[in-house]
């Protein structure tokens, strides 16, 4: 791809790109090195290299056993909240987006505008009243209080609609109808296949949104057994004031959770670009 002539012009390009890479890697490298350190070394040694007495396995052991193996539970919780929430969000958003693209009904554009407006509403506006509402039906403090709100993705509907408009030709639907296929079957067997890139993107987008969410679980949950990783780590971080051992736990825990999600993100990277093109260029 790069021939000899372009070698010269690629030097400034590479210089900028390497500098940018160093910037993005800095906190990650820091946390990886720090995860191997004792609390004393965390504050006493250079942050971008190992200390003389690395104790990664001791830290990891403590990370997973502290507070009755809380950390492993938090990882599982995060996975459940993000995985299940994103799954249902994707199902509903795909159906709704497809319906808005392919069916004409009264109030369609109004509904779409309201859903689009939902993308713009700050999370804090939702989280607080939602707490009192869910409390009215005794759901606060339960898994459901974080799971159910995660199942709504207005952005997913937006993506699904523009993608369906573009990638599911009316003629195909019409032909299938003439062949006697029911509308629901057309959706589940044909439309979803054509919309797969958008569907995967909606799922990934919602997965990361839920995984990264902090305010909602912060507001909803009391019992640390139901916490996702983000909330659990900040709970430990708030205990560093009294007990420095928690610094090591926070740092090691942050390293492990960051690595896990980075692996997921990187391995699924190619799906992102496919669906994102739709959202970006056809909006």
């Amino acid at each position, binding site marked *: 791809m790069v021939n000899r002539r372009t070698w010269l012009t690629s030097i400034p390009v590479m210089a900028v790109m390497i500098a940018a890479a160093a910037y993005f890697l800095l906190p990650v490298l820091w946390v990886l090195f720090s995860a191997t350190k004792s609390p004393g070394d*965390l504050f006493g040694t250079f942050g971008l290299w190992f200390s003389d007495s690395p104790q990664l396995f001791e830290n990891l052991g403590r990370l997973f056993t502290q507070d009755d193996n809380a950390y492993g539970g938090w990882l599982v919780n995060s996975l459940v909240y993000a995985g299940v929430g994103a799954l249902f969000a994707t199902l509903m*958003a795909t159906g709704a987006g497809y319906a808005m693209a392919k069916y004409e009904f009264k109030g369609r554009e109004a509904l779409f505008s309201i859903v689009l407006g939902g993308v*713009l509403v700050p999370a804090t506006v939702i989280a607080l009243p939602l707490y009192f*509402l869910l409390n009215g039906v005794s759901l606060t403090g339960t898994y459901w209080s974080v799971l159910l709100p995660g199942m*709504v993705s207005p952005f997913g509907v937006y993506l699904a609609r523009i993608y369906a408009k573009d990638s599911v030709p009316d003629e195909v639907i019409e032909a299938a109808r003439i062949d006697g296929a029911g*509308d629901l079957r057309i*959706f589940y067997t044909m439309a979803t296949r054509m919309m797969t890139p958008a569907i995967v993107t909606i799922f990934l987008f919602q997965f990361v949104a839920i995984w990264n969410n902090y305010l909602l679980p912060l507001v909803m949950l009391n019992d640390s057994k139901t916490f996702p990783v983000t909330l659990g780590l900040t709970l430990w971080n708030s205990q560093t004031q009294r007990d420095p051992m928690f610094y090591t736990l926070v740092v090691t825990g942050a390293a492990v959770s960051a690595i896990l999600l980075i692996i997921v993100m990187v391995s699924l990277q190619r799906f992102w670009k496919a669906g994102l*093109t739709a959202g*970006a260029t056809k909006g």
Partner: protein
Amino acid sequence: MTSITRSTARRKPLKQRLTLTVLLVPFVLFFAAFFVLPIGYAIVDSLFTVRSSGLGFGAPEKVFVFFENYARALATPSFVESIGRVLLFAVIEVPLMVVFSLVLALLLESGKAHFPRVFRVIYFMPYGVPGVIASLLWGFLYVPSTSPVLQILSNFGLDFTPLGGDSVLFAIANIALWGFAGYNMLIIVASLKSVPGELYEAARIDGAGEFAIIRHIKLPLLRPTVVLVTVFTIIGTLQLFVEPLVLKPLTTAINSDFTPNLAAYNQAFAQSNPNLAAAMAVIVALIAFVFSFGFLKLVNRKGNRAW
């Protein structure tokens, strides 16, 4: 786009109506329950207040006060300052984010980059790190006792305090930039890839240089993408919450009303004023609407196609 439904709807109205219901209703119900209802609740809640009497040792009562909470919020200097602060923050963050992710994307797709896939992964990676954890990590990198960067700088006699009053907004902007630049870059890369390669070839044959291609072909094609990225960044900056919340204990420059969202959270949870908090939250939402729609209107106005 013409729709197929009109002709078929006459033929099988019931069956199609049923399909429409099955596809649409679950989302609409959830959207109503978890988006519309809470907003309605917040608006209603913002019209009430909880009053005690005497020494305040008895149970309080709830009273209807119309827009008093809004008046109180807007009469609270620290809240008004926090709005000004996020607007200033948006002025710093939005151009920084858009330009940085645009440059990264153009470099990656310039054809002069070695290992573009490796770099793309590295840039995108921080998106997978939750904002709370990113803030915790940068928090360590912002204080001299744990920050290798500050230690190196101080060896050269440069004492830089990222969490000082003058620089704290940049410190926060940096965390957001770190987390989202790669994601925005990926959106732009995706839309660059959808441009047919022949377009560039034709331009090159016509003797256009690399910058001319960027200026006259790539940027105009990227316009809608960049608009989208900008709107998302605007919404994100106005909602600033997690980063100052995490950094607050580390510095004197962040108070409990640092951003409107933080102020609302503080009122709702630390100071048990959920009604005032609701009013503040509604104000934040209104500002977000005004700015994102305002921006969209501005760029979509006829004759305003600068590039």
